[in-house]
């Protein structure tokens, strides 16, 4: 009996942590109880990207999008929608400005503006079933590449598509492959490595792709391997991604079982297999040489890349290292052609890019948009604007070592060069939005602190320089900065960027440099002893004004008994005792506690 309905339960990490698997089990139990299990299929899918509203449930073919579905909603949902055919409005998503819930997925603005290439199978397949992937045209590109194209043609095709590395560097993928093919290898051995060591905090596109569509990565890797003549591939997955790891292993087994991996792939005589290497979670291991060192079993430290890894890489062999998203794009390019791919995006940045929207934005989650979309569209149209009706202040792109871009750069198109010129970068695609409650000095200090502890410590500028930056920024945040500190900071930033061994140190000054460039007034305010955003504790004072009703809440909340006052009387704060934790500020319902 064919299934008349498909319940697509999102099982991305976000939704799983929101108990989507329990929801799935409850659903299947309910279906079985009602005898509907023969006609309705439950599909466990990968991440849909709209992680902020999980668990997500999509009912196909109706296209009804349910959000925040709890186990307790199951009986109602089954009764109403599945039996009586009446979609349940209370579980649908209501966009911020809209009054009515939007039943269909494609009508939700978050999804509407997206263009799915790398995430083409998002939410539509069960990532643990290769059959689902094949059904949606999976491995057709591989078949095409292996039977109708020469390796050279594939490289030409990728070159023509304008695909650039999605991991951050933005190096043209086709040229990388071509260089690898031309690099001398004594025994002809070449390696293909997939970088799934996604270390940027708040970025999860690679994880999402592997979790939701592992076969697209495998297919991309096999095509790449065929193009460069590699027979052994590695994927470096961080150990913090257990679900991704599990699904990728299942996918590998299935691909091998179908003969899509291993010896004599699809009967064409081409051999290629993939080994999974688990990273231990060092940020720096996302750097190509450090990653290869780690695979080889050595300490994950970068080395100078004056001789590129495409020439001398893993085990001193020519090695192509690409990011998950890059590989996921490859089958589409092969299948639909370079021309089609190149038609998307801007002059130098082709195709689409997956971003993880995070921070003070209403719709947090994973989105795939064509290159060239403006930051404003990304944040305000797809992201739904600033959360809690806050005011936009800055957006950081490209992970912790990306720069902060201010409001007047919001119309900047998303494009490798444009972002670089503005002092930031594409990076792997993290987008962190900050509103008026963020102090840019403090945020810069936060990221510098992250970077100093994630620096491997090998080279002087990265190890000592970032530490020095952190020292100066902390001093400024503590209100002890001087005008000379800003000059020192700028000098330090430029030398650290100039002389660091790898890209971690090279890009580490970005948060400092861009915050100095676009938010210098905030630094100057700190030098004057003021933190405009009211974040830096040393520079703020909590006071209670006459709006106080004597509710006594602040008195109870204060951990150091710094609040004085009898119930129903006006309270006050003993500044000497106050540790500026803000507990009183948070509990006051009358705006009587002020921060200045």
């Amino acid at each position, binding site marked *: 009996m064919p299934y008349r*309905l498909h319940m697509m339960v999102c099982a991305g990490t976000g939704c799983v942590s929101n108990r989507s698997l329990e929801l799935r089990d409850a659903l299947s139990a309910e279906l079985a109880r009602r005898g509907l299990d023969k*006609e309705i299929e439950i599909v466990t899918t990968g991440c849909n990207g709209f992680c902020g509203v999980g668990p997500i449930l999509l009912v196909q*073919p109706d296209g009804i999008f349910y959000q925040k579905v709890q186990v307790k909603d199951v009986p109602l949902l089954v009764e109403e929608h599945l039996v009586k*055919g009446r979609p349940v409005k209370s579980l649908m998503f209501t966009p911020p400005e809209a009054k009515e819930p939007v039943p269909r997925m494609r009508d939700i603005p978050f999804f509407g503006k997206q263009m799915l290439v790398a995430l083409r199978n998002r939410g539509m397949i069960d990532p643990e079933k290769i059959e689902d992937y094949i*059904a949606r045209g999976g*491995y057709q590109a591989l078949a095409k590449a292996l039977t109708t194209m020469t390796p050279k043609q594939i490289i030409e095709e990728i070159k023509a598509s304008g695909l650039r590395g999605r991991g951050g560097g933005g190096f043209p993928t086709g040229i990388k492959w071509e260089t690898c093919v031309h690099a001398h290898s004594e025994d002809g051995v070449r390696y293909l490595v997939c970088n799934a060591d996604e270390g940027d905090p708040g970025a999860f596109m690679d994880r999402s792709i592997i979790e939701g569509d592992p076969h697209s990565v495998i297919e991309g890797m096999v095509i790449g391997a065929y193009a460069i003549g590699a027979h052994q591939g590695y994927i470096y997955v961080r150990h913090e991604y257990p679900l991704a790891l599990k699904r990728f292993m299942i996918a590998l087994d299935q691909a091998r079982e179908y003969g899509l991996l291993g010896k004599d792939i699809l009967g064409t005589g081409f051999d290629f297999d993939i080994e999974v290497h688990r990273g231990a979670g060092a940020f720096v291991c996302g750097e190509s040489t450090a990653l290869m060192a780690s695979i080889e079993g050595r300490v994950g430290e970068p080395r100078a890349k004056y001789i590129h890894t495409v020439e001398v890489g893993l085990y001193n062999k020519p090695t192509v290292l690409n990011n998950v998203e890059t590989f996921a794009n490859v089958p589409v390019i092969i299948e639909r052609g370079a021309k089609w791919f190149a038609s998307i995006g801007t002059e130098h940045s082709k195709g689409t890019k997956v971003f993880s929207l995070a921070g003070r934005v209403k719709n947090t989650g994973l989105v795939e948009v064509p290159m060239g979309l403006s930051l404003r569209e990304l944040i305000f149209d797809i992201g739904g604007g600033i959360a809690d009706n806050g005011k936009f202040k800055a957006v950081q792109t490209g992970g912790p070592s990306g720069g902060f871009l201010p409001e007047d750069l919001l119309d900047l198109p998303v494009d490798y060069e444009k972002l670089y010129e503005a002092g930031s970068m594409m990076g792997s695609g993290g987008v962190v939005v900050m509103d008026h409650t963020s102090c840019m000095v403090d945020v810069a200090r936060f990221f510098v602190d992250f970077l100093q502890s994630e620096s491997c410590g090998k080279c002087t500028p990265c190890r000592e320089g970032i530490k020095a930056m952190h020292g100066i920024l902390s001093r400024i945040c503590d209100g002890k900065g001087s005008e000379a500190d800003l000059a020192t900071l700028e000098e330090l930033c430029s030398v650290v960027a100039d002389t660091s061994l790898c890209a971690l140190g090279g890009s580490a000054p970005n948060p400092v440099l861009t915050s100095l460039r676009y938010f210098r007034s905030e630094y100057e305010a700190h030098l004057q002893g003021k933190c405009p955003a009211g974040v830096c504790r040393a520079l703020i004072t909590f006071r209670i004004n006459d709006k106080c009703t004597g509710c006594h809440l602040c008195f109870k909340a204060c951990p150091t008994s710094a609040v004085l006052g009898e119930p129903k009387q006006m309270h006050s704060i003993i500044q000497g005792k106050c540790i500026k934790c803000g507990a009183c500020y948070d509990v006051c319902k009358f705006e009587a506690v002020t921060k200045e």
Partner: protein
Amino acid sequence: MAKLTISELQKLREKLAQERQTREGNARGQIIIHMGTCGIAAGARKVLTALLEAMDKQNVRDVIVSTSGCAGMCSKEPMATVQLPQQAPVKYISLNEEKIVRILNEHLLQGNVVKEFALAVGSERMG
């Protein structure tokens, strides 16, 4: 599982894709069985099962089978609505297992409205 060749991959894909067509929302048509309390009492459940079995037997994969609530004419239940792309929906009344199979074959698959069972063309809202 035997290793695939290129042509086997192609065949496998076609088969798998067909099985999953409705998931994509691609279909030649949709049939909605009205499953209000009245409908179920009048045997809509059996009608639905018969329809699905027939589809399975004939390997029909591109028809969306939906359910909905009471259509308002409880005396004519079980009822169904057939909708083909670019065409007005057609409502059928007083169905049973045999009738629904005919509707499937003649209307959904061949496009000929089964006039004997039809009530009207068009939906309430549209009408």
